[in-house]
């Protein structure tokens, strides 16, 4: 009982203190209802490339808000305001009506990002516009227009579904969130923490005194693995083409370049796209919104011969010296499968077959392996499963098997299809990134790394929050001897007189690689609506995967050019120039090499 009395005594004292001693002051505060909340937005974290070059910045922008309680008479104020910000007053009233009666003391956003002249006009007439508040807010700015747009992504206003989901608890209506790319994946790191202040305002809503302030905590800065110089080089090379370039460090999995063409301007998304702008992006037959490096699927074509070679060597179907005679075609049952070289390659072993991309050689290897054994190797090489890169909507690709065909198409496997598959045609599908992971594993001696796009996260003050660690996805299913043979073949692709990619050869840099020409058998019928690119849509896609320097690779590259015809003529030179730029650049010596 004593305790209870003591407790109630305490409550009474507090009550007395609040209502009697502080009562006068608190009554005054409540009478004017003059306390307003102003939120201070946290500056979003910035993005830098691997060398600390700024890629994404925040710039100040001015937003016009209104606080209804202070804007009396509302209709008159809105009328005046609508002249300055050039928005019909009807539209403004509609915005206000949505909030009417709910929070009369909270600011309602009327227009974002007004220009300096409008700002000046409003500021000068401040006393004529009660309750109108201009807010300075950090606004996202992508420094290099159209560059790495798919990778970096963009922001957009949070939608109602996100607002209700658990992941986005604590977000408010009208707030910007990452919609695509890095901006989305690392939303949590980039976001920071909103601050705010309590202010006492006078009858026209102007701040009279600040009661309390809590500073906003800026979001963390991201340091990407991208090399901006190289990225822009790749984008220049892709200019006017549809396709993708991805490159990575074979020893770590750090992605150096991720370019997808055509691209789009991210800054346009921040100001809000018009209907026409959006429609033209979506209806563009070259799919500018798609990150072709991770979302687009292509038949890997002759680059897949790396897999067939590994499978053949490891299964003992061929060895270094096994030769097949290429007459320019291969008969299977009553069908004839042609080699790309109609006159034939003559007697070829596996190294020459890789170097000259002899189809007949691999038809025979594939035929002896059977599709399921080949598929096992393809899967072990990382095909048919996502690499796990920190980006949304990564495509999985496809490694066909007998069981798959029966399940998906309800038909049994035809022996001839195995032949198509063994040269990377048929049902095979892969993303450029998957082919890159495979190539860089060949380059480094057999280790497949998960592609990394984030190097480290630092606070705004520069303190390290997290450093990414390389993660191994698996090992190529190939012994030392096999790797040696495959690497020899890839070296000869570029460096042998008869190799398919002599054009890639550069004096002073030792490049290895593999070309590919992916047949475009059946394009979607509705594409014919576009008259101009029609003829182009029947041309095959051009592939090139490669790495350099051959004996101690520092960079691996995968290039795809849609309808680029031959791997050697379009994709190869792009890969060559990317490698050249990277290796000939003055770079600080990294200690851990």
């Amino acid at each position, binding site marked *: 009982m004593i305790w209870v009395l003591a407790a109630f005594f305490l*409550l009474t004292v507090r009550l007395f203190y609040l209502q009697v001693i502080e009562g006068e*002051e608190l*009554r005054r505060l409540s009478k004017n209802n003059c306390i307003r*909340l102003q939120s201070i937005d946290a500056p979003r974290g910035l993005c830098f490339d691997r060398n600390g070059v700024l890629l994404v910045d925040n710039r100040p922008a001015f937003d016009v808000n209104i606080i209804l309680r202070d804007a009396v008479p509302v209709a008159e104020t809105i009328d005046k305001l609508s002249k300055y910000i050039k928005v019909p007053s009807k539209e403004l009233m509609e915005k206000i009506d949505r909030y009417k009666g709910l929070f009369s003391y909270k600011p309602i956003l009327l227009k974002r990002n007004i220009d300096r002249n409008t700002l000046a006009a409003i500021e000068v007439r401040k006393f004529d516009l009660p309750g109108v508040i201009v807010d300075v807010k950090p606004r996202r700015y992508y420094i290099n227009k159209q560059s790495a747009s798919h990778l970096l992504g963009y922001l957009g206003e949070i939608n109602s579904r996100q607002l209700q989901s658990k992941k986005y608890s604590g977000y408010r209506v009208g707030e910007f969130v990452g919609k695509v790319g890095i901006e989305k994946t690392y939303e949590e790191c980039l976001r920071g923490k909103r601050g705010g202040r309590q202010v006492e305002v006078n009858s026209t809503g102007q701040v009279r005194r600040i009661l*309390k302030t809590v500073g906003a905590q800026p979001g963390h800065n991201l340091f990407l693995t991208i090399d901006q110089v190289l990225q822009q080089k790749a984008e220049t090379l892709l200019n006017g083409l549809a396709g993708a370039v991805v490159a990575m460090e074979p020893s770590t999995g750090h992605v150096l370049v991720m370019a997808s063409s055509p691209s789009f301007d991210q800054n346009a998304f921040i100001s809000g796209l018009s209907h026409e702008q959006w429609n033209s992006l979506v209806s563009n037959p070259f799919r500018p919104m798609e990150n072709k490096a991770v979302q687009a699927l292509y038949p890997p074509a002759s680059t897949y011969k790396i897999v067939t070679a590994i499978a053949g060597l490891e299964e003992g179907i061929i060895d270094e010296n096994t030769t097949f005679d290429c007459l320019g075609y291969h008969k299977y049952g009553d069908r004839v499968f042609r080699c790309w070289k109609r006159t034939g390659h003559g007697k070829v072993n596996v190294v020459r077959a890789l170097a000259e991309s002899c189809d007949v050689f691999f038809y025979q290897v594939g035929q002896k392996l059977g599709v399921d054994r080949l598929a096992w190797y393809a899967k072990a090489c990382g095909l048919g499963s996502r690499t796990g890169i920190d980006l949304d909507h990564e495509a999985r690709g496809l490694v066909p098997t007998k069981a798959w065909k029966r399940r998906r198409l309800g038909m049994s496997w035809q022996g001839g299809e195995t032949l198509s598959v063994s040269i990377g045609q048929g049902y095979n599908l892969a993303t450029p990134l998957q082919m890159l992971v495979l190539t860089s594993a060949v380059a480094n001696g057999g280790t497949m790394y998960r592609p990394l796009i984030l190097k480290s996260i630092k606070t705004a003050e520069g303190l390290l929050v997290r450093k990414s660690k390389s993660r191994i996805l698996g090992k190529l299913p190939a012994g030392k001897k096999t790797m040696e043979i495959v690497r020899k073949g890839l070296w000869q692709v570029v460096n042998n007189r008869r190799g398919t990619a002599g054009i890639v050869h550069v004096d002073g840099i030792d490049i290895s690689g593999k070309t590919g020409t992916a047949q475009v058998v059946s394009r979607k019928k509705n594409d014919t609506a576009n008259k101009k690119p029609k003829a182009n849509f029947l041309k095959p896609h051009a592939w090139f995967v490669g790495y350099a320097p051959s004996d101690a690779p520092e960079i691996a590259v995968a290039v795809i050019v849609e309808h680029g015809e031959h791997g050697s003529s379009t994709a190869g030179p792009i890969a060559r120039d990317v490698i050249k730029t990277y290796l000939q650049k003055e770079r600080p010596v990294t200690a851990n090499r």
Partner: protein
Amino acid sequence: MFDRRLVQYFDWGLLGAAFLLGLIGLIVLYSAVTAGTSNQHNILYLKQIVWFCGGLTVMVVFFLFNYKILDRWGVVIYLICIILLVCVLIFGKYVGGSRRWLAVGPVTIQPSELVKIAVIIILARHYSRYANTNGLTLIDLITPMALTVIPFALIVKQPDLGTAMLVLLLAASMTIFVKIEKRSFAYLMGGATITFPLIWFFLKGYQKQRIMTFLNPDRDPLGAGYHIIQSKIAIGSGMILGKGYLKGTQNILSFLPEQHTDFILSVLAEEWGFTGSLFLLIVYLFLISRGLTIAYKCRDNFGTILCFGITVMIFWQAFINVGMVMGLMPVVGVPLPLISYGGSSVITTMVGIGILMNVSMRRFMME
């Protein structure tokens, strides 16, 4: 069977106090829900009347039978409540990120409220058998601890930190009431000081936030801190006589958060001033003192501990809620007994008061 002395010993004071609180609650609730902007809240007011009548009925039921039955059925009641808690976690409705409600036909119940009574009964049953004059040792405490921790953990999982802490406080108060051996008590206090920092790691972000906000309201002047400040303004601006019924500006302008549930006292204090608030505190004090008197006068251990538990439950809720709205305690969701809107809370409190009356009426029946 029916004894005239049952009527003679009937605690009219207790009934009066409960009735008065319910009436005050309805009056204030009317102001709180009609002051808001939308009309749908008016349904809440009618609903609360229904709940209050239901509560009275339940109260009558609970003083009609002999409370000894509770001793006999204690385990069953406890188990049913635990099962309900498990059901909440499986079938419960998600409201604002936590699962606390269970839909049973047209009504939704909050089993975590009912479980408070169940814990009181089971602990009273246990202590009435095992308590002794030397005090309980650590080993004696294992069973009651388990009985408390199970519902506690289930409620934390919902998560409803306020109610969970209340269950813990209840159990702790009852245990101290039946006396703990000195050395064991020292060990427990020592253990508690070590485990509290550990609990911190298991709290959810918003829960940590609230505690931090309480310790330093300036940390978050926009979120919970803002609520506290607005609540303080509401209470303080009532001054001595209040602004008058239905005239609370803080209330009308929706400055108060949860003005019909957890923050209902702010509405009362704003409109009725220090006078009204003090009156409310006095009614609570009267109710609690009646409860404690009944506990002391009861001649069997079960009844004493049971009544103490119920009284202490009402006390803690009132104390925490009033302390919270005045900024003396962190914002945890504990309703003000019989005043705040909420059916399960009203029913639970009425059940408690029914039991108190029950014990009070039958104290002559001891041999």
